[in-house]
């Protein structure tokens, strides 16, 4: 691993790597459209490793499913809840997975509006991750209500009881926010996939698969008329998704901030949650894409320049959440409310001190390493850091939920919490559920956006350019960095 202190040399230093602006990140080692199709479609062939991974994910999912059956039979008491703590691993994991989903929409929608060049190759992975993460998150409130078959009571529909949900309840806001987010993310993913499914349809020789792709591609022909309306619709979907993603985690934070519980009742929660969500989501993008670029042999698509650019986003969001953590302590002190002051003292020095320090070290200290350009381009370190950040972000939600509920206003309300084995099975099951869908997706549909990658590849021109000399579409020369020390192994 490179040292933190190793400086980047001057302009003449042969070890110096260019600090490429994120908008200029291109794919110098990809020559033409045929190469894009051939290499990316080749990743859809199932391998032994893929079957093993899918098997593991299904086993984990079944562990969670079994725990759910057990809990339905024996009741919600199996979840380790006892007064005063009636929220635990379910709500923690719900917020964790909603947060994971946010980076996907940030990459696919917000960075699209900002014309950030580094999003192109990672956006499909991220968008799929969003859909599956929100599908995972959506399970937890349903599990948590104890009688999951009655979850539809939260949806406003004309019913014989003439009862409507209370629209002033954060739980109902959650229903609207999460269901809208899942619908729009899925739509956005599918709309982006249509031209790529058309590629699969045109290449496919198996008649059954060809028929399925024909239906899924909706008869897409790549005509100028289709592209004209597609591009505009895609822009508006991105424009809708941008405030949507900010609203969803704000609404999730209202689940806490609307309560008078110490540690929760703060107006800083929405921006703090949104930044944390982007932070953890980018970490999950690394967790998925760094092994994938190696296993699929696509290091020239997700290049070190791409990872470097994402690392800068992670560093920035780490600084934002770090500031939020510290400001929370200031707000508690400045408020003069004894219960708030007591709670925040207890957070770092009391009953749950260890969880707060895991959070602070994982989310504030380790990401500071990304100030080093060497480490931003070291995929092994980025992968390890992604795991550290995900652990830290799960603990962030633990620190929000558990210490607050076990240390409210009156000492007689104070208590403890120990997650039960049912809780832990659900946690394992959620990862199994998420990765099961993701792995199935990787072999059925392209995890790299074919049409969008082709947009940044220099088109073939008649005799003027050879385009095999690393000239990108902007006319700039970009050296491809095929291999560097510290590669993920």
């Amino acid at each position, binding site marked *: 691993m490179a040292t933190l202190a190793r400086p980047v040399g001057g302009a003449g230093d042969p070890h110096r790597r260019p600090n490429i602006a994120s908008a200029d990140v291109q794919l110098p080692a990809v020559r033409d459209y*045929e190469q894009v199709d051939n290499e990316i479609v080749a990743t859809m062939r199932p391998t032994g490793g893929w079957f093993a991974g899918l098997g593991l994910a299904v086993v984990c999912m079944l562990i969670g499913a079994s725990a759910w059956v057990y809990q339905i039979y024996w009741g919600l008491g199996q979840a380790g809840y006892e007064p005063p703590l009636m929220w635990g691993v379910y709500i923690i994991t719900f917020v964790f997975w909603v947060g994971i989903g946010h980076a996907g929409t940030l990459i696919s929608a917000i960075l699209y509006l900002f014309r950030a060049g580094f999003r192109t190759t990672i956006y499909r992975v991220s968008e799929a991750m969003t859909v599956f993460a929100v599908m995972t998150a959506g399970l937890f409130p349903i599990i948590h209500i104890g009688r999951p078959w009655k979850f539809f009571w939260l949806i406003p529909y004309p019913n014989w009881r*003439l009862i409507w949900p209370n629209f*002033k309840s954060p739980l109902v806001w959650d229903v609207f*926010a999460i269901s809208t987010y899942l619908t729009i993310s899925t739509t956005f993913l599918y709309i982006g996939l249509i031209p790529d499914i058309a590629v699969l349809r045109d290449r496919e020789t198996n008649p059954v698969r060809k028929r399925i792709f024909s239906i899924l591609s909706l008869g897409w022909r790549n005509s100028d008329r289709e592209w004209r309306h597609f591009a505009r619709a895609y822009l508006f979907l991105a424009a809708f998704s941008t405030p949507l993603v900010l609203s969803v985690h704000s609404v999730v934070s209202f689940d806490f901030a609307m309560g008078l519980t110490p540690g929760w009742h703060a107006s800083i929660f929405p921006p703090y949650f949104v930044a944390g969500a982007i932070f953890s989501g980018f970490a999950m993008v690394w967790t998925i894409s760094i092994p994938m670029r190696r296993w699929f042999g696509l290091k020239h698509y997700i290049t070190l320049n791409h990872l470097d650019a994402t690392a800068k986003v992670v560093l920035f969001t780490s600084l934002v959440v770090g500031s939020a953590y510290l400001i929370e302590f200031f707000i508690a002190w400045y408020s003069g409310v004894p219960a708030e002051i007591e709670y925040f003292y207890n957070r770092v020095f009391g009953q749950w001190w260890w969880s707060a320090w895991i959070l602070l070290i994982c989310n504030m200290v380790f990401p500071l390493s990304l100030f080093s350009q060497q480490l931003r381009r070291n995929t092994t370190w980025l992968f390890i850091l992604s795991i550290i950040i995900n652990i830290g972000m799960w603990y962030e939600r633990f620190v929000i939920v558990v210490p607050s509920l076990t240390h409210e206003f009156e000492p007689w309300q104070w208590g403890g919490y120990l997650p039960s084995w049912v809780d832990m099975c659900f946690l394992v099951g959620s990862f199994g559920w998420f990765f099961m869908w993701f792995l199935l997706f990787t072999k059925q549909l392209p995890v790299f956006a074919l049409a969008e990658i082709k947009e940044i590849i220099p088109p073939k021109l008649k005799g003027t350019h050879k385009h095999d000399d690393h000239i990108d579409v902007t006319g700039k020369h970009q050296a491809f960095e095929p291999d560097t020390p510290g590669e993920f192994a």
Partner: protein
Amino acid sequence: MQGVLAAFRELDAAVHAVEELKQKRVGDVTVYTPTPRHEFEDALGSPSSAVRRFTLVGGLLGVTFGYWIAIWTSEYWPLVVGGKAIASWIPYTIIGFEVMVLVGALSTVFGMFYLARVPRLTMTVGYDPRFSHGDYGVFVATTPDKFQAAEELLRRHGAAEVRGER
């Protein structure tokens, strides 16, 4: 629909062919491209997409419905707490916003499908699978008496293959 279909390997060759076809008014031109290119948009001079109207109408309907359902149901079954307003616009803005995004985005997709004539049940004439892969396609809808002139024009600009479609 009948006309002449040409496949081009190079972008500039296809763009120049489209420009000349438009200039000589041979017939309606359709371009097939594996990825959207502004060069074709400029050459074809197509009007901007009307998808935005669907977006606007859908968004307005959505936000109206979101506020209405929250306000109407509150008034229908009032929950009076401490003399506070029964219908409070601040929390209902969340509902209004979310439904605006939901209906606005879905109507955008509907608008795109409607305007782009998708879903399409058949490929009809004038399509070749290579146009999703790497080649650019130019289809000019014209009568058989103009086929030869159109074919010559397309070949002159460097079409890799030209064929009549009926």
